[in-house]
């Protein structure tokens, strides 16, 4: 401990995991970073030590013991498969992986801190839900499947772990949709489509969190809490403010195609089969009813202030992706042209006309 913490990061082969590994090893409080994933990463992990281990296997316990890890940052809870794996493999990594990892942590006396990446989709998304979810809001309709259900189960195991190892500080961070110049989330894939399919008659409220803020808050949770704050518990992490799906489409400059709700599932299946993108049912629910979370706990208890608001996050994302078929700048210019053409000539003539 004298030489700094040993941080183990799972899911290091993914964008987010890779960035976190590179970021955290520069922290003076860190002695060593152990990056774990089942496949070797394509990106550079800096000075971190990469251990190729599948967290679904008991071998992970050996890794923990061997490096006498004291902080575990579990980022391998994701909705999209890495490489060729299908949904089954994702689910196994999410659920079985979390079970194995938590079991290993329980047996490792050196572990003192656990940070788990979760998602706000654990709240589901239904018309009967309150408009703004707090960490304590009882969930009326549990997610029926997909990544959201995985996250609910992972959180359940984490709660069990926290009961059995009360000496470990456990932080569960429920992230809103992560966006940024190189985020690889399902929603980022959706916004990359040239034409955005939307659900007819619904304009969901969306919240985003910037990928840089994600790293900042993970670092905040991975070390001892600052004075006056508490970094164990469950926290919603989202940027300030809300964007409607219609607003995001206009800001991106992409046309939307409203689809009747019964047909949406079908279109989602077509898109999935065609391999364009994984349009999961939970994604459809999000794009129907939207989801907004309350971030008071994040500010007051965790003491974290995101750098980017929801709108700024989206702006950053949109900038890196370039405008779509209907660039907002061109639309604005069109309106400006009309505006420039209307009043000046008419103003003088109208004045005299009225007086006559």
């Amino acid at each position: 401990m004298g030489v700094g913490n040993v941080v183990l990061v799972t899911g290091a082969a993914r964008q987010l995991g890779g960035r976190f590994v590179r970021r955290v090893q520069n922290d003076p409080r860190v002695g060593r970073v152990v990056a774990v994933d089942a496949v070797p990463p394509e990106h550079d992990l800096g000075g971190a030590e990469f251990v190729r281990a599948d967290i679904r296997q008991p071998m992970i316990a050996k890794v923990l013991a061997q490096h006498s890890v004291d902080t575990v940052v579990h980022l391998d809870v994701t909705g999209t498969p890495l490489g060729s794996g299908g949904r089954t493999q994702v689910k196994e990594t999410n659920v079985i992986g979390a079970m194995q990892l938590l079991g290993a942590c329980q047996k490792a006396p050196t572990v003192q801190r656990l940070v788990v990446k979760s998602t706000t989709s654990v709240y589901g998304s239904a018309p009967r839900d309150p408009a703004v979810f707090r960490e304590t809001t009882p969930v009326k309709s549990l997610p029926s499947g997909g990544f959201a259900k995985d996250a609910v189960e992972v959180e359940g195991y984490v709660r069990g772990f926290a009961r059995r190892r009360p000496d470990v500080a456990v932080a569960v961070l429920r992230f809103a949709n992560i966006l940024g110049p190189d985020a690889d989330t399902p929603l980022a894939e959706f916004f990359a489509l040239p034409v955005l399919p939307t659900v007819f008659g619904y304009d969901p409220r969306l919240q985003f969190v910037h990928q840089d803020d994600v790293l900042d808050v993970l670092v905040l949770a991975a070390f001892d809490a600052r004075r006056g704050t508490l970094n164990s518990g469950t926290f919603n992490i989202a940027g300030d403010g809300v964007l409607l799906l219609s607003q995001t489409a206009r800001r991106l400059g992409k046309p939307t195609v409203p689809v009747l709700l019964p047909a949406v599932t079908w279109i989602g299946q077509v898109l999935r089969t065609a391999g364009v993108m994984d349009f999961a049912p939970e994604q459809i629910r999000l794009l129907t009813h939207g989801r907004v979370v309350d971030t008071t706990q994040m500010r007051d208890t965790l003491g974290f202030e995101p750098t980017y608001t929801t709108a700024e996050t989206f702006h950053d994302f949109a900038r890196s992706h370039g405008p779509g078929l209907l660039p907002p700048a061109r639309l604005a210019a069109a309106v400006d042209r009309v505006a420039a053409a209307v009043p000046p000539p008419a103003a003088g003539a109208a004045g005299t006309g009225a007086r006559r």
Partner: protein
Amino acid sequence: MADAKVIPFDEDSRGRRGSGRPRPARGRTPAPGKAAGKTADGAQPPLAAVQEDGTVPPPGIPAQAAGGRPVEPPPGQDPPGDLAGALGAVADRVLGGDWERKVASGLAFLRRRVTGDYEVDEFGYDAELTDQVLMSLLRPMFGAYFRVEVRGIENIPAEGGALVVSNHSGTLPLDGLMTQVAVHDHHPAGRHLRLLAADLVFMLPLVNELARKLGHTLACAEDAEVLLERGEVVGVMPEGFKGLGKPFADRYKLQRFGRGGFVATALKTKVPIVPCSVVGAEEIYPMVGNSRTMARLLGVPYFPLTPTFPWLGPAGLVPLPTKWVIQFGEPIATDGYPPEAAEDPMLVFNLTDQVRETIQHTLYELLVQRRSVFF
């Protein structure tokens, strides 16, 4: 249900004639006022509304935005002065002197809308769209059709949270919308009423979208608390569907006020309760029968049978032009109670009864004063 919010738009053209809002041009040019006034006065907002209603701009938007007015000359070129002059004179007569400003602000509005450069709060309330478009669509119904008389608006505090508790009637929730217009247009501080609506509203396509943009949210303690703590004026109809879909014979008889959840929320957030009585909404769709089979088939709480609906088809959806009075009563303070009062069922029930009695009595008083249902 889906038509509840659609009706105002149908009414728009008809009710335009004599809205209560200041419209300087109307008196001066009675003949062309009807046609020209409609386009000129509403030119900007309805144009934007067309794009807004769909929420999602159809692919043709740039064509509409840019090419929708082919008469406009391109910039730089000097436009033919005669045409502009004539247009200007017409617009000037119809709209009054400041039409250029209106056009400019309308175009600025349009620009913000097409580029998505506007803000909504976390409940999805689109203040700009509500003020500039949705309210102007509801206003003719408020002023010309139902000729709503607003009394006691000063009972809503100029600042800070308040809970407006109102009776609910009329088969379709037009009373809520009219109360919202009443607060928006008549309150000296220009406050916005944030209505709490049933979950059915948020299940229906289009309706949920409009409701969210109008600032409505789900009637649940969590949302109400957040809004009241933020100092908003929140409107609630505790009777819910029991009041909305009651038979015509039971008109102006207040139904049960639920479990008094609204009182508990007001106690918790220490905001005054403003009782509100709406007279006139009961008669807009006299519900003489209820088809349970249809209701079950459609998954709605009731399926109204009125003298015109569903027999006349969509025409049966036109409400009767009754004369309305919306009276806001003396606020009932809740800040004198201890913090644990919200959990005291007896206190909550007593306060609920007090609010209910106040509204019921005011309803009877207003009914006695009323000369006729329609005038």
